């Protein structure tokens, strides 16, 4: 069996999530990677270097400069006949693109798989991770997005794979890219961070997130938030960890002023070590925390900063 992975990238670098997706793909068969973009040769070379990848297919054209689903699905469809499984990471790009492809192929997609039983059978979380379903697909071809925190990152291999160019498909006039407004981060991205410190409703305001940022700077951590903090307007939505935000599994997750609603736990409960700081000793977050500290966060977090500096 040969498996195609759609690579999510920014024309400069292959995103970390692809390495985990490649590990999942390797469990199913031989792995080919599709890199569609503009001036994306470097990304193709990065993909070719990953262990388990036997071929990289590149479509380098201005029409693929931005990952528009209307433009990309015909391209993937044009080569889909060669593959038993088509995978993408569960990033916003993968989630936007793959269902459109699945419908064109008349396939019922499997979203956000967290385990592979065999080539037809997969595990995936449902109800915000409160249940794990094992589902068997009866479709001849599978279209799958991968929960990247559930698979290890693939390593760099010894021999790079061949890079093969393919012809572009008819451009779509349905959608055009206008612009992006990316949050400037001088810290690691949430989904890539080894340490995350997140704030919840208990932070009381967006300004107060500065105390978390100070700790993050010492630990080289990313800053996250619960949906309550996003809904209250403290921080923007791309900080959100949880069922409807980002799914993370860092080595250390520090939850500050977060009560621990099931929707938030869904996004972080696979972290290796969880710390909770909350003044309510009955907060559900303490039921999943390895280390709990019942304290006023406005006192405890500056103390934490001082202690870490020692």
């Amino acid at each position: 069996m040969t498996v195609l992975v759609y690579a999510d990238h920014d024309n400069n670098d292959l995103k970390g999530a692809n390495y985990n997706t490649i590990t999942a793909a390797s469990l199913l068969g031989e792995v080919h990677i599709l890199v569609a973009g503009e001036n994306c040769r470097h990304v193709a070379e990065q993909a070719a270097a990953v262990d388990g990848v036997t071929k990289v297919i590149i479509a380098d054209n201005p029409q693929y400069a931005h990952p528009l689903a209307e433009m990309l699905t015909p391209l993937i469809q044009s080569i889909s006949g060669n593959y038993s499984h088509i995978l993408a990471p569960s990033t916003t790009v993968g989630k936007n693109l793959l269902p459109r492809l699945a419908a064109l192929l008349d396939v019922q997609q499997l979203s956000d798989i967290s385990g592979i039983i065999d080539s037809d059978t997969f595990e995936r979380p449902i109800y915000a991770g409160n249940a794990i379903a094992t589902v068997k697909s009866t479709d001849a071809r599978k279209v799958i997005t991968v929960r990247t925190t559930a698979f290890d990152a693939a390593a760099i291999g010894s021999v790079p794979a061949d890079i093969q160019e393919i012809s572009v498909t008819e451009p779509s006039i349905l959608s055009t890219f206008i612009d992006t407004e990316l949050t400037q981060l001088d810290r690691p991205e949430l989904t890539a961070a080894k340490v995350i410190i997140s704030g919840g409703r208990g932070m009381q305001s967006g300004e107060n997130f500065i105390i978390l940022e100070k700790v993050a700077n010492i630990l080289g951590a990313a800053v996250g938030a619960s949906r309550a903090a996003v809904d209250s307007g403290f921080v923007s939505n791309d900080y959100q960890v949880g069922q409807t935000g980002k799914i993370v599994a860092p080595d250390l997750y520090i939850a500050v002023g977060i009560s621990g609603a099931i929707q938030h736990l869904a996004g972080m409960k696979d972290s290796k070590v969880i710390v909770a700081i909350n003044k309510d000793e009955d907060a559900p977050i303490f039921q999943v925390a390895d280390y709990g500290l019942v304290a006023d966060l406005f006192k405890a977090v500056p103390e934490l900063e001082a202690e870490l500096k020692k």
Partner: protein
Amino acid sequence: MKVVVAVKRVIDYNVKVRVKSDNSGVETANVKMSMNPFDEIAVEEGVRMREAGVARELIAVSMGPQQSKETIRTALAMGSDRGIHVLHPDALEPLMVAKLMAAIIRKEAPDIVILGKQAIDDDSSQTGQMLAALLGWAQGTFASKLDFEGEFVAVTREIDGGLETIKLKLPAIITTDLRLNTPRYASLPNIMKAKKKPIEETSPGDLGVDVTPRLITVKVVEPAKRQAGVKVENVEELVEKLRNEAKVIS
């Protein structure tokens, strides 16, 4: 413009979901059901377009058992004009929902269809994108802002790391993200008025769609439970444990 919104009846956001003892699924008997939260945002956006005079008609569609009519009634009480109910007793997979929606859309010919970005039961996040594919329409997923300009709509999307704005040719499919709006609560007079609004009933058979499932649920289990750890007395003890016991910081 004519606007169609899709609404799904799901287990209420606040209910703690329990896996059935025979591992065939989750317990839905005697459990509070509500409209999927992202679909409330879709209805609200449609109602605001209606109130702003951008939309002249707002139609709410739901699929499922008889009780799905209650979800349509909620959409009508929020301000939708009429409802369409695709009656089907069993769960429908996203591809089948997209096919049923496509059949309705071909008949109703709206300018825009708004759906939630994902349902909080199966967490698939597929239907909107699939519907766009089946109709050959543009898609604006995870939308946090819509700006209509003639034949086009500019959609600001929530993407990893920030926001992206794209311009779509109408007709188009939109799926909602959290910050698009804050849905209203239906007032009592509007709930009363909604009882008189029409709901048309149809079925997969009427719409000519084969809804045979493609996925077989082998089993549904509870996730591995995480054990609660220890409470520490103070920050000093916490940092000591993180350094020397958990060894996650240096």
